[in-house]
């Protein structure tokens, strides 16, 4: 078991965003975390990434308690994330972006030279090798997404959290993203995706967790979840149930 989330609860000024949510993630899993807007998936995501602590509950990574650790320590323990609205370092080159990930994060290297070599390899993997000297601010939206992914990979994560990574992509680009995420499995990286596009999540994940109004309403294989009457009612709506 790589990650265990125990009874997470989070309230913002009296408003309960997440209530008693528990789940586990096995090594090598691709887990889909879905739910309608405001269902608490972003809150759960941010707690796992260390953006803010939960009101109560625990997050354990490989059995060790990481609840409430600040984001940079969470990263050092081996959890990397992407942002829903991409946040590359705009005034730094693509190479510097990835090098920053390689020199910090989990298992960082101290040598600038080594970081540069490894960062180039990662840039090649995400198809940006030729743009290594381009400032991130001059890249297209798509390229920025890949760069942010590359920067996250450079931190050598055990667990990668992808926040609506597919949002804004055309169906073709979604396919490209899915095959890339497929490759992570071979590299031993476990992935949790928070997504709006249900179809992509169902194809990609081997395990799906559905949140609604801050609570977990279903969990299981994509097939199980998509047949679950609670899910159909809360998330997909009655009218889709027949399809």
């Amino acid at each position, binding site marked *: 078991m790589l990650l265990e989330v125990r009874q997470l609860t989070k309230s913002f000024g009296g408003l309960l965003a997440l209530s008693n949510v528990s789940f586990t993630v096995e090594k090598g899993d691709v887990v889909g975390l879905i739910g309608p807007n405001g269902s608490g998936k972003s809150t759960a995501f941010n707690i796992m990434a260390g953006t803010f602590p939960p009101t109560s509950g625990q997050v354990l990574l490989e059995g060790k308690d990481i609840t409430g650790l600040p984001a940079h320590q969470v990263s050092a323990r081996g959890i990397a994330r992407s942002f829903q609205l991409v946040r590359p370092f705009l005034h730094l080159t693509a190479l510097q972006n990835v090098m920053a990930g390689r020199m910090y994060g989990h298992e960082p290297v101290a040598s600038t030279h080594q970081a540069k070599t490894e960062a180039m390899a990662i840039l090649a993997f995400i198809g940006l090798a030729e743009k290594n000297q381009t400032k991130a601010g001059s890249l297209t939206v798509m390229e920025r997404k890949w760069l942010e992914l590359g920067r996250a990979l450079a931190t050598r994560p055990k667990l990668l959290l992808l926040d609506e990574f597919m949002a804004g992509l055309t169906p073709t680009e979604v396919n490209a993203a899915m095959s890339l995420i497929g490759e992570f499995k071979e590299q031993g990286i476990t992935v949790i995706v928070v997504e709006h596009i249900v179809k992509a999540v169902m194809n990609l994940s081997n395990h799906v967790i559905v949140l609604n109004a801050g609570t977990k309403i279903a969990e299981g294989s994509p097939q199980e979840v*998509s047949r679950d009457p609670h899910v159909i009612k809360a998330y997909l709506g009655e009218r889709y149930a027949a399809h």
Partner: protein
Amino acid sequence: MLHISRIDVAYGDLQVLWDVSLEVGPKSVVAMVGPNGAGKTTTLRAVMGLLRPAQGRITFMGQDITQTPTHEIVNMGLCLVPEWRGTFSTLTVLENLELGAFPKAARAKKTESMQRVFEIFPILAERQSQRAGTLSGGQRQMLAIGRALMLQPKLLILDEPSLGLAPLIVDDIFKVIKQISTEGISILVVEQNVNMALEIAQYAYVIETGRIVQHDTGAKLLTDERVRSAYMGI
């Protein structure tokens, strides 16, 4: 009525729209659909003069508005309810509506417009003296639409009216949109909720990564294989 012809838009070095054209005729409901980040909001910002296209032309009622300041576009009767709702949370509901009638022409008909808004949204009449920031999401959306109606617009643009609202409220909002359209106001609605948008639209455009990739009547797109699998499939 509204003609967007072949506009390109960039944020600094970053081009986000290519060759986008779109048309809204009088007394019609038109939808623009597409995934998050495809350029829907950017198109609307360009229409409203909040962004200047690098190429192309936008006309409204036959007049070129490509370089016109936002408030003048609004005064011409072209009004946008933005995806960020567009209410002033530190002002009361009444103040929000009053400000909605800021342009001189609208100010003259203020009382009459406000009565109409209260008829459509009785809840706003009840909450008049409350600060907009204390309203629920759905009420704020109603206030934003109400505020726009205070201007007595000829064309109303709605950016993601269903975003973040409970399904029941979404139904209400779409009913109101239909009602407004029957009163002779043209509507351009931008939605991620593709199904609902296509159901009320006579004509619709599909935008992906900054380009219009498909356009047809709402009914046809609703049954289109590609649209169904990309946006409605499970």
